[in-house]
């Protein structure tokens, strides 16, 4: 058995917003830095960089994670989606419209993280209660304190998707 040697930088390959990408990543760079610096995905907002604020949340293999608490090199072999990818694919168009309609963003700094966290919840299906929605976004800080409108927007979207699914099933 020949163990691989630890490296300060390594070549990685992963799927980013639907495209296969390759790059060299510094070991010390967290995923948020890699996505912003190497791929220009500045929708990944870095707030606290220690896992508290949630602004840097992205989907890794379909699950919401803090991109500041995962190393860029750990993206190797995974599927990563940022708010840019979710936007371009149209997957959260309805959610974004609901945020707009309900005025669920003020300064906008928390918005990408809120959208990604909400996207994960909404893809679980059903019509989550406001309490469940609050739990889902409890790791995302909005320092403008516009939480009511954000919960409203997520709730509205969940109900609309649920109604659409029922209609499709009938």
């Amino acid at each position, binding site marked *: 058995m020949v*163990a691989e040697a630890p490296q300060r930088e390594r070549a990685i390959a992963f799927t980013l917003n639907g495209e296969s990408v390759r790059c060299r990543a510094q070991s*010390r760079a967290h995923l948020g830095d890699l996505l912003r610096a190497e791929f220009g995905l500045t929708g990944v907002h870095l707030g606290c960089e220690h896992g508290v604020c949630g602004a840097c949340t992205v989907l890794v293999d379909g699950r919401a994670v803090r991109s500041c608490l995962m190393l860029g090199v750990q993206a190797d072999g995974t599927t990563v989606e940022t708010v840019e990818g979710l936007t371009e694919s149209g997957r959260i168009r309805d959610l974004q419209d609901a945020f707009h309609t309900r005025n669920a963003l003020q300064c906008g700094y928390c918005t990408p993280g809120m959208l990604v966290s909400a996207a994960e919840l909404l893809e679980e299906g059903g019509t989550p209660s406001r309490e469940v929605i609050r739990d889902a976004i409890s790791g995302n800080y909005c320092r403008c304190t516009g939480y009511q409108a954000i919960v409203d927007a997520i709730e509205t979207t969940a109900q609309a998707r649920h109604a659409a699914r029922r209609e499709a099933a009938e």
Partner: protein
Amino acid sequence: MKAPDFAYVRPASLDEALALLAEHGEDAVPLAGGQSLVTALNLRLSAPAVLVDLNAIPELVGISETNGIVRIGAVTRHRDVGTSEIIGARLPLLAAALPHIAHPAIRNRGTIGGSVALADPATEWPACCVALDATIVARGPEGERRIAADAFFLALYTTTLVPGEIVTAIEFPVPGTDAVWGFEELARRHGDYALAGLAATARRSGAGLADVRLVFFGVGDRPMRATAAGAALERGDIKGAQAALADELDPQDDPATRAATRLHFARVILGRVAGRMLAGGSRGGGHHGG
């Protein structure tokens, strides 16, 4: 802030990981879910030369049940522990604890083995392990060791793990059909560290309880077993159990909360949990949101 420079390696087997940890000695740190370690790196509270990533080792992941033992691989994510069908059926206490662990994005990434090895005294899994009489399975240069959870947690961030040794799994005896359990936690904000928490298990015995194990967290430097309080509950004496906590817990004053306040919180949650467990209720008499 940004993490200091370090080298990174991602072994594909446990043997390889242990060899790397042995080779690099004190310069190396194992990386599990990273939800505490990467935070510490970003804050420059920690500056290891080498990170050995345990996330690509299949044998460390998964939940299985054999001969009355549920085994959870160390690198199983919090969310996968709490939502597993086996856990829901056999160890509902763990499922009840899950919503109290930080936030969804942290639960998606953090691991039970990482949490146990870190031994933060205000966290849920270590207390649950002690309450459920779990065995911590560790591998290191000297081979495999099996350590009772009760003896594993020594002090703040301190366990019986030796350098180069990692937690590989946690094994839980499946509670009997007469088992009851309770879980309660008070925190300032949803998902925040516990001001006081309690994981409790017992057996129903006649109209009362036997083999009561009360394990508090957030009120001492490790998961704190309250044996005198447990004995009082076996006599059906909730007030006596609450009174006994003064000698059994070791809360500390901090800038936001006095020790006496934390002790009060511990008594409050003991009252709630004991009431539900003594009321007999269903086996899952444990959990209320918030």
